[in-house]
């Protein structure tokens, strides 16, 4: 008998929210025309787009004209970094970022450096929290065009001190970009930022929709060839049905966010305590308190991460890993590396609205045996 599937990788992609499905299907019939044109079908598409923008902006507490939809969260992150740097190139060419940014942000930073720009990486502590003193000194340095901070670590869940970081940026006159991909729809995002990005499939919207918010007065310049759509911030025709579904589901998850956090956070506490107690030689990483409500990461000593993922998959559990053997680059997660915590045998669990206490219980019941079997197979028991 095969085990029933338990999906525990919402931080990669949350299952499609029913509101998203409903809106998507409706908008497929109604929202196929180009909203920029001057005929009836286009006006209907324009209405849908305007309504989606208004809804998403209201949920995030920003003005509709500050918010653009992008073809993905990654595209939004690239545009946030490169556009924020381009808009202030006369001030300087330095980007300050935390060491635990998403790879989309780090790859944009690499592009900037390859083009002759400079980047300063600010370290985190063992729990994955930003070193605010180093950050404050870094943003005060001359020639800083932009600072980038992830709202909460996508790999270990640690909430970052966004308010303190924003205050340091304000003192230095440096705009702050916040990658809120894991926070939007889950936890409130502190203010004080100038640019923000998010990704719809992290909250239960469809893949292929990102959000880019550029606050009024921010000097941001598109890094792309000219295109008038989305206030000139992101080129190309949008996938309007997906945008409509993203906005509708964002409103739904934001309305439920506090209740969902209250339901999921104790399940994460349970995973943290039971994994630590019942799996020998395991390191549960990330901040136990200042954390996302739905995400937890741990590493099992002497266990091959890829083998662990496959063993869990055979038992029906879908999880993610920051171990090098599970990455296409064969490098360990830069987040685990920056924290100085064990990178092999790593598992990231991320819960969502369909995750039940029974799912978590079954995972916790089966994990110790799965890890023990892998250790026995590798001959590392008792090391």
């Amino acid at each position, binding site marked *: 008998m095969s085990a029933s599937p338990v999906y525990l990788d919402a931080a990669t992609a949350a299952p499609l929210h029913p509101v998203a499905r409903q809106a998507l299907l409706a908008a497929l019939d109604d929202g196929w025309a180009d909203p920029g044109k001057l005929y009836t079908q286009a006006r209907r598409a324009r209405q849908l787009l305007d309504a989606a923008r208004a809804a998403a902006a209201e949920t995030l507490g920003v003005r509709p004209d500050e918010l653009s939809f992008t073809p993905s969260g990654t595209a939004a992150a690239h545009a946030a970094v490169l556009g924020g740097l381009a808009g202030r190139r006369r001030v300087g060419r330095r980007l300050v970022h935390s060491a635990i940014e998403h790879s989309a942000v780090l790859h944009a930073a690499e592009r900037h450096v390859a083009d002759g720009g400079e980047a300063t990486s600010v370290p985190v502590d063992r729990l994955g929290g930003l070193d605010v003193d180093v950050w404050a000194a870094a943003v005060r340095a001359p020639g800083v065009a932009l600072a980038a901070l992830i709202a909460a670590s996508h790999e270990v869940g640690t909430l970052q001190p966004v308010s303190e970081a924003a205050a340091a940026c304000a003192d230095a006159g440096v705009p702050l970009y916040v990658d809120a991909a894991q926070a939007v729809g889950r936890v409130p995002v502190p203010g004080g930022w100038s640019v923000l990005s998010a990704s719809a499939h992290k909250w239960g919207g469809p893949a292929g929709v990102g959000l880019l918010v550029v606050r009024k007065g921010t000097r941001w310049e598109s890094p792309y060839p000219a295109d008038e759509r989305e206030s000139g911030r992101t080129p190309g025709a949008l996938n309007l049905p997906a945008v409509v579904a993203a906005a509708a589901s964002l409103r739904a998850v934001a309305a439920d966010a506090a209740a969902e956090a209250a339901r999921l956070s104790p399940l994460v506490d349970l995973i943290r305590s039971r994994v630590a107690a019942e799996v020998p030689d395991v390191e549960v990483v990330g901040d136990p308190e200042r954390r996302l409500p739905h995400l937890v990461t741990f590493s099992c000593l*002497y*266990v*091959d991460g890829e083998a662990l993922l496959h063993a869990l998959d055979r038992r029906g559990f879908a999880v993610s890993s920051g171990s090098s053997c599970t990455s296409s680059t*064969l490098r*360990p997660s830069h987040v685990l590396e920056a924290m*100085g*915590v*064990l*990178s092999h045998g790593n598992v990231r669990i991320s819960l969502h609205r369909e995750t039940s206490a029974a799912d978590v219980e079954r995972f916790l019941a089966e994990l110790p045996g799965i890890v023990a079997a892998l250790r026995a197979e590798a001959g590392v028991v008792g*090391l």
Partner: protein
Amino acid sequence: MPDEVLDCRGQRCPLPVIAVARRMPELPVGTVVRVLADDPAAAVDIPAWCRMRGQEFLGTVTGPDGPAYDVRRHH
């Protein structure tokens, strides 16, 4: 200088850590083992193993044999 060299080049995570964990109890307290390991995960995992096991991580040395990690048996 290390008392012993463990050549773990070509081994993927977590094999270099397993190698040092196997060898350490066979050596007297105070022995310094140099682990040669070219898997980038070793740079993270050998210091982390030392912290979890209460062994002493002395540092990373990059020489002609690639990256090496010095560990002293502490107990």
